């Protein structure tokens, strides 16, 4: 039975027992508490289901919901700058009115009806520009929707805008966007993480309900951790990449952000499955993830009894913030309280992941970005000669991080270096894949921090690319192994006006997102004293 359907839809509450929590409207706080008197800090609920109930019970129209959500989006936008493109309100309202007409006609408007979905700007949308955060695609409008976007729309979802990102996904802070820097909703002087920083910040600040991101080396999971939201990187091949502007094709995955595990799972369910336009998309069945969720009220005392959890030793080692380590250790204790057996496991090849990842990713990207030549679309400079046209268009169109990676990738694939770099990195990749397989044969899930630190200051690592790359240590191995991983907020460290969230990464076996979501949901619903709503969220929407 669906847990969420048993629960009353509840408002987004900001009051928590968290010491730094932000309160502005005591009356609403009071109301929230009276609604759920048993728990002063109720766990996150599915906003998608709340919207669905509101629509189907005719308590609110889709148009009303869209308008109130848009108002909140616009209120936060000048401070956060999460979005690169926002369509006219009229266009969004037209979508909403169509949904209302369907509801009025007694039809099911779809499981995502009325849900505002943010879409990372490297995922193609036919009705607004898709620039991948790059000057070279400024104003570019794709003639088609990415498969994931198409599926979201088919299920009633409303694409509310395109979210900011590091250019072509190359970065971990969203500072490498050619257009703007996005702020972290928990502390506006900090980065939201990257490269899907806009998508993470938008969900964190409740500018949209859920969002799509892309994860090549951690670009969904690290910003989810920095922004205190749930982020899911599915198994490679689980979600079609058609319409995702390629960074590193063998590592890229479209992922999901939500403010609850349930919403994240619902979004994954909408976009997952085989697509005949992506030869690497899997034909594996997509289970109904929602049926894996168990209601808190019907949980046994040890709901995860027998689950074998492996804490990756190399991820709680030197170089990881003490606050992060203690948050992860606390999470491990929480797993034990839920009945799991938690053991430390060692993945000796773990540290090899970073260099192997960067060689493979830059190699593939040097190839994937060749098409941005200024000939057919995008930024083109005037030139007398073909070579200058190429050189000029690319020199002006690409940012410095992208240029650096193209140069590194071109070098790694060059004759005479191929064997030493690309081929060797592929061998390392095989070793890493095997070591994960081994670890996952002895453990049901593996856990680690999602990032070695919480969100850092804007500009802090901008001139130190190696330090920034090193921040990807927790996540890149999962992409190399092609496995699914769920990041959910598990605690806080000191910093900012109200503390900074820390994300827990759970890694599962290939195509076992269902288990990650089930375990993540129980973890989330039973975690006490943590309310992951950032201070910027001051208003409330009653669905």
């Amino acid at each position, binding site marked *: 039975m669906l847990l969420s359907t048993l629960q009353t839809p509840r408002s987004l509450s900001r009051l928590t027992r968290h010491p730094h929590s932000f309160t502005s409207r005591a009356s609403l706080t009071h109301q929230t508490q009276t609604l759920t008197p048993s728990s002063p800090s109720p766990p996150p609920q599915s906003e998608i289901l709340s919207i669905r109930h509101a629509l189907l019970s005719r308590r609110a129209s889709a148009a009303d919901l869209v308008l109130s959500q848009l108002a909140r989006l616009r209120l936060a936008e000048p401070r956060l700058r999460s979005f690169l493109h926002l369509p006219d309100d009229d266009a969004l309202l037209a979508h909403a009115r169509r949904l209302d007409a369907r509801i009025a006609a007694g039809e099911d408007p779809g499981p995502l009806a009325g849900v505002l979905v943010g879409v990372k700007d490297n995922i193609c949308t036919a009705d607004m520009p898709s620039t991948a955060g790059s000057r070279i695609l400024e104003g570019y409008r794709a*003639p*088609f929707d990415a498969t994931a976007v198409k599926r979201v729309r088919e299920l009633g979802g409303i694409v509310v805008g395109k979210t900011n990102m590091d250019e072509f996904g190359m970065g971990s802070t969203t500072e490498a966007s050619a257009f703007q820097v996005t702020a972290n909703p928990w502390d506006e002087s900090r980065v939201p993480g990257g490269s899907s920083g806009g998508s993470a910040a938008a969900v964190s600040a409740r500018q949209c309900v859920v969002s799509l991101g892309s994860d090549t080396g951690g670009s969904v999971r690290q910003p989810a951790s920095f922004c205190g939201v749930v982020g899911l990187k599915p198994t490679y091949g689980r979600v079609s990449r*058609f319409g995702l502007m390629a960074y590193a094709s063998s590592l890229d995955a479209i992922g999901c952000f939500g403010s609850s595990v349930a919403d994240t799972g619902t979004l994954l369910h909408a976009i997952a499955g085989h697509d005949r336009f992506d*030869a*690497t998309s899997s034909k594996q069945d997509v289970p109904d993830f929602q049926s894996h969720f168990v209601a808190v009220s019907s949980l046994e005392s040890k709901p995860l009894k027998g689950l074998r959890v492996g804490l990756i030793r190399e991820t709680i080692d030197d170089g990881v913030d003490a606050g992060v380590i203690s948050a992860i250790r606390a999470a491990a204790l929480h797993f034990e309280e839920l009945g799991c057996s938690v053991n430390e496991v060692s993945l000796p090849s773990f540290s090899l992941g970073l260099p192997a990842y960067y060689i493979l990713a830059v190699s593939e990207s040097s*190839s994937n970005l060749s098409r941005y030549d200024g000939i057919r679309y995008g930024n083109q400079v005037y030139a007398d000669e073909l070579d200058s046209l190429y050189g000029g268009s690319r020199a002006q169109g690409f940012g410095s991080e992208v240029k650096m990676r193209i140069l590194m990738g071109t070098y790694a694939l*060059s*004759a005479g270096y*191929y064997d030493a770099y690309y081929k060797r990195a592929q061998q390392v990749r095989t070793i890493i894949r095997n070591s994960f397989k081994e670890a996952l044969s002895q453990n049901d899930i593996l856990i680690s921090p999602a990032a070695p630190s919480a969100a850092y200051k804007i500009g802090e690592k901008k001139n130190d690319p190696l330090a920034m790359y090193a921040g990807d240590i927790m996540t890149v191995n999962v992409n190399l192994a092609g496995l699914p991983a769920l990041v959910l907020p598990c605690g806080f460290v000191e910093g900012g006006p109200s503390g900074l969230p820390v994300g827990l990464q759970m890694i599962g076996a290939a195509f076992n997102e269902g288990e990650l979501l089930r375990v993540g949901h129980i973890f989330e619903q039973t975690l006490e004293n943590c309310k992951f709503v950032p201070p910027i969220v001051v208003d409330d929407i009653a669905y």
Partner: protein
Amino acid sequence: MASTIFRSLQVHPFLLYPTTFLRRRNEVFHLASKATQSQTDTQQTKVTTSSTQSKKLDKIPKDYEAIIGIETHVQLSTLTKAFCGCPYSYGSPPNSSICPICMGLPGALPVLNSKIIDFAVKLGLALNCNLAFNSKFDRKQYFYPDLPKGYQISQFDVPIATAGFLDVDIPVEFGGGHKRFGITRVHMEEDAGKLLHAENGNYSQVDLNRAGVPLLEIVSEPDMRNGIEAAEYAAELQRLVRYLGVSNGNMQEGSLRCDVNVSIRPIGQSKFGTKVEIKNLNSFSSVSRAIDFEISRQVQLHSQGREDQIVQETRLWEEGSQRTITMRKKEGLADYRYFPEPDLPAVILSQEYVDGIKNSLPELPEIKRRRYEQMGLSMQDVLFLANDKNIADFFDATLAKGADPKLVANWIMSDIAAFMKNEKLTINEIKLTPEELSELIASIKGGTISSKIGKEILFELLAKGGTVKELIEKKDLVQIADPVEIEKMVDKIIADNPKQVEQYRGGKTKLQGFFAGQVMKLSKGKANPGLLNKILLEKLNSKS
């Protein structure tokens, strides 16, 4: 090691090209030569050579030998392109058959058209190759405006087929003989688009209709020694792809493109000379002539002690002046930075699948030629009949009805071929069926009709169709084989021409033909010629 060699072989025509100027010449030239050539008509795949060319051949000193290898690109006749659902038809308006995938738009991904694997395996088997049961696609990277993704999806170190051979019968007029040429590899790849240059040279436009069209590249061993051998190799390859139905093999439309590598060395020297690549070969005869020109150019330089002027370069065949000119020198090797295509899964073949394709292969030209040869047909007949699969099928179908091979071959090669040529029809378009041809031959052989009448009926059958029996009945054409009836006619002619009878009996025996003609005319051509002559002679001679 092998891969580095291949990198050097695989040089894209227009990479490292400083300006588009020469490319422009190439394009214009290509269009101009297209209009004037008709080399690949199905009936004329035999290589024609001009007398000037054979003179040049004679000039080549006997103490040099040429080493020639050929890279052939064959465009596959799949309904859709290699990685998207766009159809391709030659000559469509520019950019009328394109989609986000073959345009290389951001976010678009290739999905392999599985027909390409079928075709590649077919050709690989037909070329007696080893198949790679586990191969893959790779990206070959270079910048050119006709290459929308900035890389070509190709195969690099694991081509689908390797180490085969192709057997060729050299036509008698070129010395005859049976040659076997090695095949280094066959691999799958996609075609690029085309550039269209403005007449004033101010701008160029990109037409992506051809981008993503599937190709098989066939690389030969350097086994050819002169232009004729190279042209015959190419012609046999064309025959093969047409027999297999994997391509229309049309050279003018660029469905079959040959780039040749030519080097020379003094006989006895084991080291290869410097290799020169020749492009822009739009017909088999230009393959042959360009190679022979290039050989004599190199031999001349070498024999004058100027072999250092033979440099590794790409030269262009100029049809107008019948010579090769420098197109682009190769300064260092291009680095295509090949790596495995991550957007496409590995290409895995099962033994069952390969066996299925093997069993579905048609009889291949070489096998067919050997079979025809064993029937006692001359090599000229064999080459003609086996050249075009449709003609060979027609021939075989006629034989299946019990007709004599030599007679059928004669009919097809003389009157039927002439008719097709005059009417510009293919053998599939004529109204004559193999059944009726067989019937016709049987009717002549059995004496029902004369061979003269047979020819008349043949043209009727070719143009209008119908059956031999119907025509014979309708036109009352059955041969008169009754001696009494013929005797009556002979008597009448003798009686009507007393003067000529007298002359004949006076020794002018040549007049026999006159009498025979008159009797035949009287019989409306139906009298059995043998019987007629026998009776006529008896009558003429008996009263002398």
